[in-house]
C-alpha cells in the first residue's frame, strides 16, 4: 500500500502531462499481457518498456508479484489481491475497485525466469526518476545489469538531475555499460570510451572487469586499450585481495560452525571424559526444537516469526540439556572412569535417538525458516557477507565466552572443576558430585542444543543432522587438546580456515582429505593436541 502511494506520487511528480492520456494508450498493451502465453506477455512487456511511461510501474510490479490475473468472464486483466477467501480486484492502471472474484474465476498471468528478467530491466528503466534515492539506486543497478538501450535517454536525463553522489555514480556506471555494449559502441568517439573506462575502473568489481575486457578486445584506440588494460590489472589485483579476505571470512564462518558443534563436546568429552557419541543427536534435538518453536509461531503468532529463533534458543538449551541429564542419570553415571564404554553406550543411544526422531517427525527434512534479520547478505567492500553466517559467527563466540565465564566465574563452574580434578576430595568438601555430574552433562548437551538452533539455519533438519557433525567435533576437540576450551576455539578456527583455503585449489573432497591428513600428522607432532597440558601430570 505504501509502495503504491509512493508510486502515485512518483507519477504525479515526474509526468507533467495528463496521466489519463497515457493510461489510455497503455490499456491495450496491458490487456495484451494476459494473452499469448509467456511470449505474448513478454512482447507486451517489451511494448511497455518502449512506451517508457511510469504509469505502467504498478502493473509491472503486480505482474512480478504474481497479482496480475485475467478475469475469466471477460478476459480483462486485473490486479487481484487475496482478501479472505476471495480476491479483491482493482483496475491495473486506474486503481479503481472492481469488486471481488473467486479464485476459480481468475487465471494468474504466469511468469518465468526470462520474464522476471525483463520485468526487472523494465522496472529499472522506468524507475530511474523515482523520488526515492534507494529506488533510483536499484534502478540504476538494474539497468547496469540489463544494459537496456531503451533506458539510455531516461538515464541521461536522470544523471543530469541527480543530486545524490552515490546514485549518480551508479547511473554513470549504468550508462557506461549501456554505451559499451550498445550497437553504437564500435563507432563511439574515443574520448567517450575513455570516460566509460574510467567510470568502470572506479567501480572495480567483476562486472566492470567484463566490460573492461570488452574494451581491451575492441577496436578502440591503443591509448584507450592500454588504460583499459591497466584498469583491468588494478581491478584484478584488488579482486584477488578481496578473494583472500573472502576465504578468510568463509574460514571464520566454517570455523564458528565447527566451534558451535564442538563446544558442547568440549564439556562432555573434554571436561568429563565421556566419549559422547550421542553428541550429534543433542544437536539434532536442538534443531528439532527450533522447528517445533517455529511451528508454534507459525500457527499462533505469525507476526512474531522473526522472534522465534530467540525463543528457540532457551527452549533448545532446556530440551537438549534435559535429555542430556536424563541420559546421564540413567546411563552415563554407571560408566564414569570407563570412557571407552561410554562410547559404546552413547553410540547405542545415538541410534535409538535418531530412530525416535524418525518415528516422531518422519524421515524427511523439516523446514526451519530464517527470520528476516538472518536472511540475505550485505556487501562490505568486495566481501559478500550473509547475515545468517554473520550471526552464527557472533553467536558461536558469544556461547564460547558465556561458557568460559560460567566455568571460571560461577560457583557451579568451580564445582565442575573441583569434581573433575579430584572427585573424592570434592565429595569430602560437601559438593554433591552426582548432581554436578548431571548438571555438567546437561550443560554440554544444552550447548549442543544451542548449536542445533544455529545449524538449523544452514543445514537440513533431518534425523541424520547430528551424524554429519560428530566426527568433525571430535577432530576439533582432539586437535585443540582435550580438556582445554581455548584449544577447542583455536582448533575450530584453524581447521575451518584451512579447509576454506584448500578448497579453491584442491576441490571440496580433496580439501577435506588434506585437512584430515594434516590432523593425523599434527597429532604425531603433538600427541596431546595443540594446547596440551605439560609436565609430569600428563604421564601419570
Amino acid at each position: 500500500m505504501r509502495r503504491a502511494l509512493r508510486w502515485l506520487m512518483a507519477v504525479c511528480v515526474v509526468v507533467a502531462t495528463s496521466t489519463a492520456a497515457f493510461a489510455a494508450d497503455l490499456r491495450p498493451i496491458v490487456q495484451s499481457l494476459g494473452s499469448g502465453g509467456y511470449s505474448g506477455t513478454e512482447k507486451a512487456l517489451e511494448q511497455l518498456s518502449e512506451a517508457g511511461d511510469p504509469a505502467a510501474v504498478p502493473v509491472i510490479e503486480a505482474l512480478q508479484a504474481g497479482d496480475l490475473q485475467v478475469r475469466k468472464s471477460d478476459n480483462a486483466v486485473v490486479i487481484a489481491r487475496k482478501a479472505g477467501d476471495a480476491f479483491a480486484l482493482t483496475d491495473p492502471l486506474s486503481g479503481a475497485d472492481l469488486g471481488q472474484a473467486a479464485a476459480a474465476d481468475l487465471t494468474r498471468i504466469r511468469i518465468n525466469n526470462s520474464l522476471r528478467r525483463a520485468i526487472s530491466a523494465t522496472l529499472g528503466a522506468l524507475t530511474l526518476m523515482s523520488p526515492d534515492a534507494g529506488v533510483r539506486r536499484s534502478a540504476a543497478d538494474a539497468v547496469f545489469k540489463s544494459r537496456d538501450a531503451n533506458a539510455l535517454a531516461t538515464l541521461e536525463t536522470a544523471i543530469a538531475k541527480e543530486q545524490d553522489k552515490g546514485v549518480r555514480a551508479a547511473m554513470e556506471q549504468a550508462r557506461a555499460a549501456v554505451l559499451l555494449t550498445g550497437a553504437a559502441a564500435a563507432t563511439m568517439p574515443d574520448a567517450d570510451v575513455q570516460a566509460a573506462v574510467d567510470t568502470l575502473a572506479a567501480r572495480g568489481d567483476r562486472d566492470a572487469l567484463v566490460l573492461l575486457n570488452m574494451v581491451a578486445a575492441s577496436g578502440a584506440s591503443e591509448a584507450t586499450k592500454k588504460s583499459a588494460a591497466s584498469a583491468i590489472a588494478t581491478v584484478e589485483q584488488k579482486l584477488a585481495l578481496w578473494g583472500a579476505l573472502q576465504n578468510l571470512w568463509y574460514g571464520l564462518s566454517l570455523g564458528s560452525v565447527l566451534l558451535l558443534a564442538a563446544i558442547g563436546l568440549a564439556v562432555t568429552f573434554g571436561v568429563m571424559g565421556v566419549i559422547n557419541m550421542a553428541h550429534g543427536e543433542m544437536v539434532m534435538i536442538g534443531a528439532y526444537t527450533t522447528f517445533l518453536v517455529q511451528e508454534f509461531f507459525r500457527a499462533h503468532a505469525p507476526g512474531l516469526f522473526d522472534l522465534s529463533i530467540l525463543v528457540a534458543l532457551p527452549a533448545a538449551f532446556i530440551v537438549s540439556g534435559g535429555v542430556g541429564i536424563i541420559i546421564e542419570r540413567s546411563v552415563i553415571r554407571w560408566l564414569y572412569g570407563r570412557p571407552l564404554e561410554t562410547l559404546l553406550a552413547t553410540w547405542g543411544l545415538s541410534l535409538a535417538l535418531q530412530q525416535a526422531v524418525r518415528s516422531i517427525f518422519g524421515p524427511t527434512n523439516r523446514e526451519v525458516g530464517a527470520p528476516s534479520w538472518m536472511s540475505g547478505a550485505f556487501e562490505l567492500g568486495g566481501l559478500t557477507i550473509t547475515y545468517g553466517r554473520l550471526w552464527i559467527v557472533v553467536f558461536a563466540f558469544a556461547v564460547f565466552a558465556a561458557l568460559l565465564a560460567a566455568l571460571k566465574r560461577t560457583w557451579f563452574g568451580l564445582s565442575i572443576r573441583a569434581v573433575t580434578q579430584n572427585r573424592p576430595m570434592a565429595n569430602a568438601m560437601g559438593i554433591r558430585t552426582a548432581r554436578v555430574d548431571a548438571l555438567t552433562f546437561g550443560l554440554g548437551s544444552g550447548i549442543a542444543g544451542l548449536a542445533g538452533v544455529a545449524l538449523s539455519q544452514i543445514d537440513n533438519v533431518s534425523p541424520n543432522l547430528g551424524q554429519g557433525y560428530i566426527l568433525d567435533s571430535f577432530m576439533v576437540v582432539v586437535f585443540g587438546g582435550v580438556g582445554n576450551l581455548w584449544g577447542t576455539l583455536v582448533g575450530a578456527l584453524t581447521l575451518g580456515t584451512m579447509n576454506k583455503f584448500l578448497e579453491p585449489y584442491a576441490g571440496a573432497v580433496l580439501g577435506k582429505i588434506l585437512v584430515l591428513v594434516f590432523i593425523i600428522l599434527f597429532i604425531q607432532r603433538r600427541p596431546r593436541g595443540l594446547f596440551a597440558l605439560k609436565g609430569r601430570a600428563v604421564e601419570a
Partner: protein
Amino acid sequence: MRTTKLTSSLGIGALAGLAMGALATLATPAQAADDTIKVGILHSLSGTMAISETTLKDVMLMLIDEQNKKGGLLGKKLEPVVVDPASNWPLFAEKARELISKDKVSAVFGCWTSVSRKSVLPVFEELNNILFYPVQYEGEESSRNVFYTGAAPNQQAVPAVDYLMQKEKVQRWVLAGTDYVYPRTTNKILEAYLKSKGVKAEDIMINYTPFGHSDWQSIVADIKKFGSAGKKTAVVSTINGDANVPFYKELGNQGVKAEDIPVVAFSVGEEELAGIDTKPLLGHLAAWNYFQSVETPANAEFIKEWKAYTKNDKRVTNDPMEAHYIGFNMWVKAVEAAGTTEPDKVIDAMVGVSVPNLTGGYSAMLPNHHITKPVLIGEVQENGQFDVVSKTPGLVPGDEWSDYLPDSKDLIADWRKPMSCGNFNVKTGKCGGKGS
C-alpha cells in the same frame, strides 16, 4: 557397577531374546503360502537414504492396498513384504536374496541409489526375479530382470539443457554435482552434448563435492564469479540428497537469483523442497517427468488418495512415486496378461505394456526395459511447488545407452526374443558390448 548383580538377569534375558531371534533367521521355514502373491519392498527405512526412500515404501503400501481393494491380482490378495536395507549396500544384496529365496516374492520394488541397484543386480539375475527401479539414473545399463521406470539421462538432463539454451539463452554452464557415478555420467553426457552444440570448453565449469556437503559458501561464490563473465550462465545441479538443502539455503542467502543464474536440478523434487524456505529460490528449475502441480484428473485423484492414506495433508508427491505408480500398474497388467506371476513369463509380457501416467498420457514399456515419459521443466514457486514452464510435446523414450558417450553410442538393448540382449552392438552385430 553395584547394579551388576541385581540386574544381570535382566541383561541375560535381553541377550537370550536376541539369540533366539537370531536363530530364527537361520531356520528357513519354506513358507509356501499359496493364497497370496508376495511383493517385496526394498527401500531403506534407516540411515542416510531413509529420507528419500521411506516415502516410496509408503506409496508401495498404498498401491498394494488399493489393488487389494479392487480384488487383488489373479484372484489372490497381494501381500507386501517390507525389509530395511538400512542404506547399507551389501545389506541390499542380502535383503534382496532374503526376499526372493526366503519370502518367495514375485517381484521387488526398490532401490534408490545406483550403488544399491548395482549391488542387487547380480542377485536378481541369479535368482531370476524382477526389480522395479523408480529413480532417475545415469543409464548405461540394461538388465533382463530390471525395469527402469525412472528417467534415463535423455529423459531429464538433455531436455533441461535444451530448455535453458533455447528459452533462457544460456551460454555458460556450471555442472555441479555430488562426486558419484550419476552426476559423473550425466555431466559427461552433458559436456559432450554441449560441445556438440558449440559451447566452448572454457564456458563449462565442473565441480564435484562429497556426499552431505554442508558448507557451500566458497562454491556458491565461485558460481557467482563464473557467472559474472558477461555471458548468461546457468547451473546444472546433480547434487544429491541432504547436500541440497544447505546448497539452496546458501544460494538464497548469497542472493543468487534465478533471473541471473538459474539452477536446474535433477535430484530436487517436492520432497526436498519441503525442507527449505523457497521464497528466495523463486524461479530456480527442476527437470522431472512428473510434478505434483500437474493438473490432471489422475494426478488429483492420486494426491487425494496419498494424503488420505498417509493421514497427512502436508505430504507431497514426487517423481519417483509416480515411477512406482507406473511400474506397479505395468506389473499388474503384465501379470494379468501372462496369467501367472512366474518371472520369465511376466518379463516377456512386460514389453509393450502401456498404462496411464499421472501427467495425462500413457507410458509404455520399451524393449530395453525403460519407459516412455514426457519431460517437464518446472520453476520453484513460493509454496514449495513447481510451476511447469515447459513440457515436451510428445513422450520421450528412455535411452539406456547414451548417444553422447563414445563407448556406448553403438549399443542398444532389446529384450524381446530372439535378440534378448542388453548390450547389442549395432556395428559389429554381436551381443556383448564393444567386443574385442
